Structure formats: C-alpha cells, structure tokens
C-alpha cells in the first residue's frame, strides 16, 4: 500500500471511529436519565454498540499507521482539531425528540454505509461491517420507530420532533463531506462513492419522514468541516470529560 493510499485509509478510519465514539458518548449521557427504564437500557445498549464499532476502527487505524498507537492512544490523546467526527454527532442531546432525530439521521447513513462496506476490497473493513450491520439494523428499527411515533403522535410530540429536524438539518451535509484522498479509496474499491450513500440516505429519510407526517426542511446553510477538524465548541467539552482520567493519570489501569 503506498503512502497516499495509506494516509487516506487512516483518515477514513479515524472519521468513522471518531464519529461512532463521539455519538456513543453522547448517547451514554442518557444513562440514568431515559424517559422510561426500558428506553434507558435501549440507549445504553446502542451507546455500547457504537463504542464497540469505534474500537474496531481506531484499532485498525493505529495498525495501519504503524507507529504503535493503540485505540486508547487515539481516543484519549488527540485534541479537538485532530478529531475527525461528523459534526452531527457532537451536537448536545437536547430533549428526547432531538436525540432520536439525530440518531435516526445518523443511523440511516451508517446503515447504508455499512451495507456498502460489506463488499469492500479490504478484508478487515468487511469483517467490521459484518459485525456492525446487525447492530445498525436494530438501531435503525429503533430510531425509525420513535420518529414515526413522535411525528405521527400527539400535537406536542409532532411539534418537538419537527423542531428537532429543523434544528439539526444544517449538520446533515457534513456526513457526506469528502477529503481528496477518498478518491483513492473509491478507486481501490475499499469504500463506496459517497454520492451513492447520499442518494440512498435521502431516499430512506424522505420515505420515513413522509410516513411520520414530518416536513423535510428547505435547503439552507449547511455547516461542514468535521472530517477536517473544524468543530463547534461542544467537542472540547466532550473530550474533557472523555479524556480526563487517562490524561490526569497516564497509563493507569483498573
């Protein structure tokens, strides 16, 4: 593997790893605060699934890099500008409607991406996708059901989930942001062309929103830059909490 391809793959894996790590952390913030006990456990399960996916991506990124960095080094010892997560994942939880809408929009993306990665020319990525696709299929069912229930529910739930959709919409295009190196990965059939994922994503999102009687927001300003390390002010606070322990007590074990 030449250096350009190697660096492109590391960037891509860090993107997926950071995205699932940050979203998993956000979802874990609901632990003990879920609207009902059953949903509290459901969200904790999803947070752990996402953390599991993050570990696989970060571990592989560290191996390809070949400098001995482990998943923990990558998760705990990089600062905001080195994090490559999509912006939608770092947005604060807000209310349950916002959390579920964020979850739904991301999960539709993750589902179509994993589906495509099942046929990646990279064996390791295929094996990650084979594990992830089962988890993500359930995440999709779970978040879709909530979007339908809230959208097609009471006047109040409809209003809250429509507000959530309107407020988060400016971050969706960032999911499809590409870096120059992506082309190399697509040419080698390691990853799919993002345009394919985007059209599938939009089709699924549209059909669910329609069934939920929700209105697709009009095209407007889109905030982008997650993969380039351009983050909002929220990520720093997430990392402060996430990284406190290993930074205060380097090398600690329990």
């Amino acid at each position, binding site marked *: 593997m030449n250096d350009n391809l190697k660096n492109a793959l590391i960037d891509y894996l860090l993107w997926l790893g950071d995205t699932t790590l940050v979203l998993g952390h956000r979802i874990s913030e609901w632990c003990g605060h879920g609207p009902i006990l*059953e949903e509290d*456990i459901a969200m904790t*399960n999803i947070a752990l699934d996402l953390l599991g996916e993050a570990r696989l991506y970060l571990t592989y990124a560290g191996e390809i890099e070949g400098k001995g960095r482990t998943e923990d080094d990558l998760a705990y010892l990089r600062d905001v500008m080195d994090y490559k997560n999509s912006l939608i994942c770092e947005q604060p939880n807000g209310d349950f409607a916002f959390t579920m809408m964020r979850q739904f929009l991301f999960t539709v993306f993750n589902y179509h991406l994993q589906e495509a990665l099942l046929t990646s020319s990279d064996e390791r990525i295929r094996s990650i996708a084979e594990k992830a696709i089962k988890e993500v299929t359930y995440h999709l069912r779970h978040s879709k*059901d909530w979007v339908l229930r809230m959208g097609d529910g009471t006047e109040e739930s409809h209003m809250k989930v429509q507000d959530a959709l309107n407020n988060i919409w400016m971050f969706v295009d960032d999911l499809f942001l590409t870096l120059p190196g992506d082309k190399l990965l697509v040419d080698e059939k390691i990853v799919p062309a993002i345009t394919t994922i985007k059209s599938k994503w939009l089709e699924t999102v549209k059909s669910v929103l329609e069934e939920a009687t929700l209105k697709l927001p009009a095209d407007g300003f889109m905030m982008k830059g997650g993969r380039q390390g351009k983050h909002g002010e929220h990520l720093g606070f997430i990392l402060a909490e996430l990284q406190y322990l290993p930074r205060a007590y380097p090398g600690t074990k329990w």
Partner: protein
Amino acid sequence: MAEQDTQWPLWEVFMQSKSGQPYKHAGSVHAADGEMALENARDVYTRRNEGTSIWVVPANAIVASTPEEVGSFFDPANDKVYRHPTFYDVPEGVKYL
C-alpha cells in the same frame, strides 16, 4: 383522590433460550403497543445472550389463579403419588427421561 397512572400498559415477557426449548417467563416491560413491547423486551432481557425468540403478552390478557383458590386447586393432588411415573422400572439405555 388516587393519582392517575401515567405509565404505559404492562406486558409480560417470555423468552426461549434456544429452538425447541419451552418459553419461560423473563419479566415484564411497559410499552404503548406490541411492537414497542417486543423491542423493549429485546433491549432489557436479551443483553446477555438469554434468548433466541421472544413472546410478549398484554399482562391483562393473562388469566391467573388466585391465592383463595390454592386449596381447592392444588391440595387434591397432594395424596396422589400414583400419578408420578415412579412405579415403573426404566429400561436401560433409554435416554432423555
């Protein structure tokens, strides 16, 4: 005045550990309908590989015997030991008894 119960209806959860085994009562969940009950049961009761199949049943659809009926229901069986198949010699080599 009694406080209004704002919880969703209760569902009883039955889990099959593997194909061919009987379904066993695992616990209960609150849910607005069957689909949500199934997902909640999956999330709460299958986290440690407990099951491969789930039934959820509205708790109010279950007809149960009452404590008052214990005597008339169950005591008559107490002195009928001949109902246990312990008076037969099991032939050697018979499995699964």
